[in-house]
């Protein structure tokens, strides 16, 4: 989808020290016909970089420690990036909220029309959330693997300690989890530490 506008291509500065995410956001913006300046490192010289390259819009990770420095530029310079929230209607535009939920914060140069920055913001939001979802998926997989390992270990200990078979050990664990309204992996962890204490965990 190539954006055709009567204007010259907008310049977007992307400040993100998550290289994988920066790469996918950058690609998406280029595909949409924007000029992208990418900065991975958060730096003493961010404000200088902004003054030199004069981007029309800055997309920055909401968790970046450099945001306070950047925001102060709007008080210092003529070419001042302002938080995009300034432009959000006071009824809180849905896209603003979506941006913050996705971890995107954006700054636009004073005077830029909302209809020009909205599509950029939407590309960034979409990619940030894709990245978030991927990370979440990865973490879930990792947790599941770790949970599985914990449960197996706890089962083994119960079998050894009680002299029972695997099915009985699993049932015991599950009952404990139900009674305490805890997750299986939490109960497993408790079992392992208790067994360690009473010396059954060797």
């Amino acid at each position, binding site marked *: 989808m190539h954006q055709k506008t009567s204007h010259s291509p907008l310049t977007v500065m992307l400040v993100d020290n998550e290289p994988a995410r920066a790469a996918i956001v950058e690609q998406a913006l280029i595909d949409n016909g924007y000029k992208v300046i990418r900065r991975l490192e958060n730096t*003493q010289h961010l*404000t200088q970089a902004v003054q030199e390259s004069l981007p029309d819009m800055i997309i920055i990770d*909401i*968790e*970046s*420690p*450099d*945001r*306070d*420095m950047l*925001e*102060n530029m*709007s*008080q*210092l310079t003529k070419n001042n990036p302002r*938080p995009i*929230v*300034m432009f*959000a209607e*006071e009824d*809180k535009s*849905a*896209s*603003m*909220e*979506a941006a*913050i*939920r*996705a971890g995107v*914060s954006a700054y636009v140069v004073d005077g830029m029309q909302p209809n020009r920055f*909205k*599509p950029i913001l*939407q*590309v960034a*939001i*979409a990619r940030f*959330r894709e990245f*978030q*979802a991927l990370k*979440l998926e990865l973490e879930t997989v990792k947790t599941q693997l770790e949970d599985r390992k914990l449960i197996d270990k706890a089962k083994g200990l119960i079998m050894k300690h009680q002299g029972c078979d695997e099915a009985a050990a699993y049932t015991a664990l599950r009952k404990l989890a139900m009674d305490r309204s805890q997750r299986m992996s939490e109960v497993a962890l408790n079992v392992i530490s208790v067994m360690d204490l009473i010396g059954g965990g060797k």
Partner: protein
Amino acid sequence: MSTLDRLIPINAPSDADVSLGFIPLIDSAPFVIAKEKGFFEKEGVNVVLSKEASWASIRDKVAFNLLQGAHMLASMPLASGLGVGSAKVNIQTSFTVSQNGNGITVSNELYQLMSTETNNSNEIRNGKALKSVMAKKGKHEKPLKFAMVYPYSSHHYQLRDWLSRANIDPDKDVELIVVPPTKMIDFLKNSAIDGYCVGEPWNSLAVEQGIGHMIVTGYEIWGNTPEKVLGVNQNWANANSEQHDALIRALNTACEWVDDAANLEELLSVLSHPDYLNCPAEQLRYGFSAIKPSGQFDWPMEAYQKFSSDKINRPNTDYALWLLGQMNRWGQLPAVSSLLDFAINTFDDRVYCRALNINQPCKPYSLTGLLSESDWLKGVAEDKIRIHPDGIEFGFDYL
């Protein structure tokens, strides 16, 4: 726009009743302690603390209710409610978590220059020596650069106040920039800045490491004044008054605990944990204990950060009006229909009294000295009204 519709909703990983943000500074201690010592839990509120990287991030997340409240600079609820620097969102504070703790530190090089201008240490402390140094600078030399932590902060206003009392124009004669507290010392060391105004321990550490000289404290500029507050999203607070009250009670208990010298070692070890300030406990000692590194100037005991007492914790409308006066003085204040109403609604001590069961009627509000609002703003802007030297609880001096 289809991109937004196709998104997978991301749920916050916590099932907490209330998420509170904090910046890893020593005055986040009441939040950390209320969580770690179970004071929130005791009040029946399930709180998750979220470490944030910038004040801007705290402001945006509270505005959009990703966080229901946070550790904030006292000026932030005012700036948000006025819509300066961000969208207009009503954030209120009904509990102050700390008082004082700021200092102004200059580089060794600048200190040397000031020392050659005068033998009188008072002239170093009150900025007169700095004025003389600047008078000798050539027209085309770069102006001196001072840093503070946020445009809407006591640090920024104290620094400007201190400069102007020495006849230095903070807008024309120097350059003021924002630097996060944790980076101040590096910037000073690398000569990226010539001085800064910041909370502890960043003044003491610069002195201890021989990187700069702490020359004057915030207490000497403004007397005792509120520093950080619990700021909450007003819509959330109106719909969840019981939870808001529980937060206030828990933080009140935590503030008492933090101020109790018997808890110092435990406090330092909890705060230094990676989840919180993530630094050696020793580095934090200057923020809390009665010992400071020996520098050129002593800290008056009153200048130390304190956390607990009715005078400290109760929202102070006079201080809100003072901050609004400062915002106006430095060109940050938009037109407001009633400063007093706005101050009372933003620094809301009725909720404080309700939460802590204080029946003592809150004092009747008036612009101190029965000035009109425009006279009040004018008086503050012209430096004809100052906070009483001992602090805001004693009101103002009219010069």
